């Protein structure tokens, strides 16, 4: 039964990593309403990750728990898209930091939730009944995430010169990372064959239509892409994931089995 497990971990790791990233805005949002919105989106994502990790622990049996999966695996064992672990700013050398950029946050949430409404929609018919039940809940949440991100994409893209330039820079920076959506990892291939997963290739035209429609309304252009395709979902990550996990996992690792 390794097939659904590897695929479920990919979905769970996506949700927990983006949930942790977006939670960085908690208390630092550009306006109070967005601070609340991002915290709520993170709660949904972490909740989805918990349900998925619980399902994996159930399939693994023994002493597997959701906490062990989230807190006691290292970066190379995570199966999330590289897109989701990137910091909230444009490309810099690995050790450099910059202020968080809300355009980067919104564009990433838009690109990911545009994919996930389609993925969750398909997964409602998964042969894994546990996953199908999680999908039927998650699609309702992802629809609100997409609605929120799309609204801001249009407001900032079709806003001032400054907001337009920043959101276009974020699109140019992040769009190449979405190529990873369309390569099929061994775990995905096996899960599709077992009717556990949806074939992402079949979703691509709808995703393209969704993205192009929003970019056009936001007066943004879509960059052409030819280049390196990231492979986070097979465990080959950027330098950023380790720092994210260090922050997320340090408390659980300092106090194993701690309860509070």
């Amino acid at each position, binding site marked *: 039964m390794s097939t659904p497990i590897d695929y479920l971990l990919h979905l769970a790791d996506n949700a927990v990593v983006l949930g942790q990233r977006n939670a960085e805005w908690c208390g630092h949002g550009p306006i109070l309403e967005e601070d*609340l919105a991002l915290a709520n*989106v993170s*709660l*949904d*994502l972490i909740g989805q990750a918990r349900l998925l990790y619980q399902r994996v622990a159930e399939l693994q049996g023994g002493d597997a728990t959701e906490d062990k999966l989230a807190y006691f695996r290292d970066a190379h064992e995570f199966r999330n898209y590289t897109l989701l672990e990137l910091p909230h700013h444009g490309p810099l050398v690995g050790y450099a930091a910059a202020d968080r950029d809300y355009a980067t946050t919104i564009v990433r949430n838009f690109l990911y939730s545009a994919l996930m409404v389609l993925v969750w929609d398909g997964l409602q018919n998964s042969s894994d009944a546990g996953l199908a039940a999680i999908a039927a809940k998650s699609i*309702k*949440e992802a629809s609100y995430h997409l609605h929120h991100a799309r609204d801001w994409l249009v407001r900032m893209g079709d806003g001032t010169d400054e907001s337009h330039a920043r959101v276009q820079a974020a699109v140019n920076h992040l769009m190449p990372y979405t190529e990873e959506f369309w390569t099929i990892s061994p775990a995905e291939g096996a899960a599709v064959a077992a009717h556990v997963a949806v074939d992402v290739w079949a979703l691509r035209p709808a995703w393209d239509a969704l993205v192009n429609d929003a970019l056009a309304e936001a007066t943004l252009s879509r960059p052409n892409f030819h280049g390196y395709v990231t492979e986070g979902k097979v465990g080959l990550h950027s330098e950023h994931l380790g720092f994210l996990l260090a922050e997320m996992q340090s408390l659980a690792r300092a106090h194993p089995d701690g309860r509070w």
Partner: protein
Amino acid sequence: MSTATERVWAALEALTDPEIPVVTLRELGILREVNDAPDGLEVVITPTYSGCPAMGQIEDDVRATLAELGVAARVVTRLSPPWTTDWMSDAAKAKLHAYGIAPPHTRPPADVSVMRFIKRPVADVVSCPHCGSSHTVVTSQFGSTACKALYKCLDCQEPFDYFKPY
């Protein structure tokens, strides 16, 4: 219904939502079933939003009530069918309205085409729970909790929460 399940229902009936204390868990559709299973009583609850922090409190409240009653019953969390605001009773919606929260609209029938995601989403027209005006505007799609959106009434100028359809 056995006497035991009736007693459990009667006790759990009093439990309210930790965030919205005017509505009960049963009215919200969170408390689903009390079953007299061969291996003992079981209480079935269904989670709302995946990350709702109130769910832990709700489960604790159910367990505490069962313990107080001296009833040994399992609490089972069931995901499917997924919780929906359409399960909320009319009485619950009226209470939300009186509490100052605009109750959720009924979900539109499911559109089977994925193209529904491409259309620009249109915010629901929500009546102000204070003055009844439908001249309102959405301020933010996420309010104090994930299940609510922030709206503002353009007539009475009051801000209010809208319980979003789920």
